[in-house]
Structures are given as structure tokens and as C-alpha cells.
């Protein structure tokens, strides 16, 4: 295990940011800390980096107890949401900074900077100032700067949060490929479930200062530990007291199966290849259902039609924790 966090507590005044958090992050993997804003994931990352101090609990990095080590001594690479560039230095100087501090020989520094700038595709910008780069380029520079000192772990705090959607998607794919090349243990914070599902080997879901679930993207999606994880990772609707994904509901035009819930189609929306239904059940629940266009046509569905709903056999189902009004 590369990073071991145990029993972390952290409060800012009355606000509890982390509550008895313990996680183990394996060596060489790309892990996402996923959760809503203000849930404590950035605080956890900053405590691992030594930029914030936990009230209680311990942090171990690569087998050494880092709880009381200052940030300078943790050998951790950190990438910030807003790039944190050194504005008065050229791109090459920014990347060289950590090596110059370590008093490495000039030739070695030049070679390493060259190599890193090639890795992040910024070779031709070596002598530009950061202000002459786009946001995506600045973040790649920040990444090269963090990698220059060969950190034992690389931590990224919402690294693509300040970028527009298209660049974000490109960088996300690029980070995944980079990680496959470099293999440094990497932890990144995101509130974007798609980003986490697409990039990470493992996801830690954090909400209100607590770890809700740890697992691979497939595990989280297929076996969510609770209603929160399930709803955070994708669309969820409620049918007969259980949370279920809208595409995991079977629609029938006759009461064929026992336990089927009767209702009327109150809204029907065609979006591309799929059809979204809102069904008002006799029990007063509003259930969202997604089916393919062909399937909807073969059933002859229209607004006002009476249907019977059942959860598809083998679908992911979680008991609804909160009383739901809207279904």
C-alpha cells in the first residue's frame, strides 16, 4: 500500500470536513476521490500532501509515517485546480524548479526538463511565460513540474475543474495514457462521476466527511453500497421502495407478473434513440423509465396508457434510504 490513511478527523471551526476517515491507496494505481463539493475530498488530499494538518489520525506514505512531516519532506507531487504557476518564470524554469532546489547538476536538470516537456507535449513552449499558454497547457506544465522531482505519489486537486468541457475530456484521456506510461501512484479529486468512472482504477466515494464506498468503477456501478453512491454515479429512480436505474425497469401493457406496479404514463419524451417515460403509479409515485425507441414502439406506448412496471431481473437495486416524494 502506497498511502495509508487512518482515523483522520478534521474540522474548520464548527464545520466537520473529515470524520474518522481511513483508506488505503494501492501502489501504482490511479485512484479518484469522488464526491459532491464540500464533501471533504480536497481536504483529505491536502492532508495527504501536508498542506493541511489533521486534528487526529495518521498518514503513512510508502511505509514511512508522514503525519508530522512538513509538505517539503513528503516527496509528493501536487497539482492545483488553478495551476499555481510561477508567473515570472518560463515554462522550462517552472519545471526545473524542484530540481534546482535539490541542487542537481545543470546538465542533468536540462535533460530531465527536456524529457518532461516532451512527455507533456510542451517542448516548443519551453521559453514562453505561463501567461502565454492556454489553461490546458498550463495544467500540463504544472503536471510536468510535479513529476520532475520523481514524487512517490502524485496528487491532483480537481485538475481539470477550471477547463472547458472539450479540453477537460482530452486531458482526461491523456492523463490515463500518461499514467499507463509513468506508473506513479496517482490520486485525483473530482466531483465529476463520468471523469472518475472513465479514468480511475479505483474510486473512493466521499460524502459529508465520510467514506461511503471504495471500489473499482464496475463494483461501484454494479454494487453500490447505498442510495447515495448509486445516485451519485448515475441516474436513479424509485420504484416500490427501492432505488433502481431508469433503464432497469421493465414495462408491460398487461399485469403479467406478480408484484408489478400499476400506473399511467404521464409524460413521454423522445431523445435520440431512447424514450423517457414518467409513470404515475397508483400509489402516487412518479417513476422515470428509459427504454429504447423500438421497444417503446412495439409496446404501443402513449401518454395516458396504463402500464405495469417491474424491476428487471438481476438489476442493481438498493433500498431507498430517504423517504421520496418525487420518486
Amino acid at each position, binding site marked *: 500500500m502506497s498511502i495509508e490513511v487512518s482515523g483522520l478527523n478534521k474540522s474548520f471551526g464548527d464545520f466537520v470536513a473529515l470524520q474518522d476517515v481511513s483508506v488505503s491507496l494501492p501502489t501504482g494505481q490511479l485512484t479518484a476521490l469522488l464526491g459532491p463539493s464540500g464533501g471533504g475530498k480536497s481536504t483529505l488530499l491536502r492532508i495527504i*500532501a*501536508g*498542506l493541511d494538518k489533521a486534528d487526529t489520525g495518521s498518514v503513512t506514505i510508502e511505509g514511512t509515517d508522514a503525519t508530522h512531516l*512538513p*509538505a*517539503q*519532506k*513528503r*516527496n*509528493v*507531487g*501536487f497539482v*492545483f485546480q*488553478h495551476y*499555481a*504557476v*510561477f*508567473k*515570472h*518564470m518560463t515554462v522550462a*524554469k517552472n519545471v526545473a*524548479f*524542484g530540481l534546482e*532546489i*535539490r541542487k542537481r547538476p545543470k546538465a542533468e536538470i536540462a535533460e530531465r526538463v527536456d524529457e518532461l516537456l516532451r512527455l507533456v507535449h510542451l517542448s516548443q513552449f519551453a521559453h514562453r511565460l505561463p501567461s502565454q499558454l492556454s489553461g490546458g497547457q498550463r495544467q500540463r506544465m*504544472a503536471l510536468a*513540474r*510535479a513529476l*520532475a*522531482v520523481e514524487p512517490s505519489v502524485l496528487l491532483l486537486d480537481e485538475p481539470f475543474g477550471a477547463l472547458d468541457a472539450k479540453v477537460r475530456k482530452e486531458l482526461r484521456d491523456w492523463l490515463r495514457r500518461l499514467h499507463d506510461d509513468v506508473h506513479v501512484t496517482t490520486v485525483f479529486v473530482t466531483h465529476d462521476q463520468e471523469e472518475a468512472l472513465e479514468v480511475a482504477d479505483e474510486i473512493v466515494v466521499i460524502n459529508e466527511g465520510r467514506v461511503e464506498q471504495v471500489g473499482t468503477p464496475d463494483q461501484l456501478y454494479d454494487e453500490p453500497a447505498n442510495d447515495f453512491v448509486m445516485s451519485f454515479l448515475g441516474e436513479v429512480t424509485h420504484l416500490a421502495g427501492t432505488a433502481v436505474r431508469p433503464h432497469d425497469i421493465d414495462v408491460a401493457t398487461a399485469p403479467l407478473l406478480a408484484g408489478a406496479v400499476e400506473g399511467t404514463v404521464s409524460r413521454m419524451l423522445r431523445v435520440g434513440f431512447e424514450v423517457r417515460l414518467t409513470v404515475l403509479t397508483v400509489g402516487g409515485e412518479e417513476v422515470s423509465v428509459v427504454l429504447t425507441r423500438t421497444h417503446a414502439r412495439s409496446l404501443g406506448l402513449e401518454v395516458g396508457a396504463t402500464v405495469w412496471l417491474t424491476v428487471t431481473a438481476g438489476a442493481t437495486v438498493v433500498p431507498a434510504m430517504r423517504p421520496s416524494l418525487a420518486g
Partner: protein
Amino acid sequence: MIWFSALVLIPLMAVVVTAIDGGWDVFWSTITSGQTSAAIKLTVFTALGVTVVNVVMGPLIAWVLVRDRFWGKSALEVLIDIPFALPTIVAGLVLLSLYGPDSPLGIDIANQRPAVFLAFLFVTLPFVVRMVQPVLEELELDVEEAAASLGASRFTTFRRIILPSLAPAIAAGAALSFARGVSEYGSLVLLSGNLPFKTEVTSVRILSSIENDNVAAAAAVATVLLVISLTVIVLLDVIQRRVAARG
């Protein structure tokens, strides 16, 4: 551009022309006369000394104002600006009553050179502070955190990250503070006593030349000050570029 010329360039040219008008010999004999050159030396060296103090203390005060939280901080914010707001002759009076013959502190520096230094220091205090403060406020904390996570000590972070960002502001503040020092009159006339060869500064020297109807001499001294000020401002700019580039 015309506006700028009318306001700044034409008066400057007029001074230089008046100085040259009297002929090179008059110019040279004026500024090399014992009393005048003593005044120039005193003014320039004291202004330089005060500027050095401000360059060190100004960023420190600005740092405390921006980064620390303490009781009475907003009062201090206002206090810093008092030398700006106070008419200089009032400042002179304050200094005289505090450090003059009737000093309640028992410090009497009237008619001595420290009086000039003190008066300069008093009126130039806010320049560097007020130039550096907004720049310091703009500095993002995550930049310092990035340096720390790369292994930089507090001192290295200050020298290589913070100082280069502040350098232009410090240089601008220093230039203002030097220029203000050289031109200072009101705050020091009362306390310094204006003793020739001892505490007489150039602005006093210029005034007495005018009073003696010797416009050429006044213009000559003014021209020398002009050249010195320009040199210092250019020098400061060069230094600032060096510091900013070193990072």
C-alpha cells in the same frame, strides 16, 4: 501626449534652459560652491538612506497587514496613510514638538542631521507599503504551497517566488520615496534648522537662491536634482528587472 508634454516636459525643459542660460561657468561654480554641494550631498545621501530603510521595512509592514490578523489592524491601516494626508508643515510641527528642544521623550535632535533623516522617513513611509500591499494581496497562496510541495523551504519560496513578484512594486515605491525625499521641504524646515553645511537641504537652498534673486543658481541646483532623480529611477528599474528575472 500633448497633455503630458504640457504638464511635464515643458516645465522640465524650462528649468534646464534657465540653468544653461547663465552659461556653463555660472552653472558649474554654483553647484560646486561649498554650501550648495554640501546641501546636495546631504539631500541625496539622506534620501538614499531613507529609501533603503523603506525597501526593507515597507514590504515587512505590507506583509503584516496582508497576512496577519490582529487586534487594531484596521487602525494601523489608517495610520499608515497619515503621512500622505497630513500637510507636510504640520508633520514638521509634530516632529518638532516630539523631537525638538522640549521633547517629552527627552530626545532632542533639532538642528542636527538625524532630524533630516527622520523627516524624510516620516513622509516617505507609506510609499513602498502602499505599492507592495495590493500585489501581495493578489499573490495566490497555492503558488507558495506548490513551491513547498516541490521541496522549497520558507526562505527559498520567499526569495525565488514571492520576492520576484514583489520586485516591480518595491522598485516603484522606492523611486517614489526617493523622489519625495529629495524634494521634501515642509516637514524638515522646522526641526532641521537649515544650518548651512550641516542641515541645509537642496529645497531650502533653492528657495534662498530665489529669495536672493538668483534664478540661474536655483535652476542649476534643480537641474542637478533632476539628473540624480532620473539616474536613480533608471537604476531601480534595472535592479528590479534583474530580481524579477532571477527567480
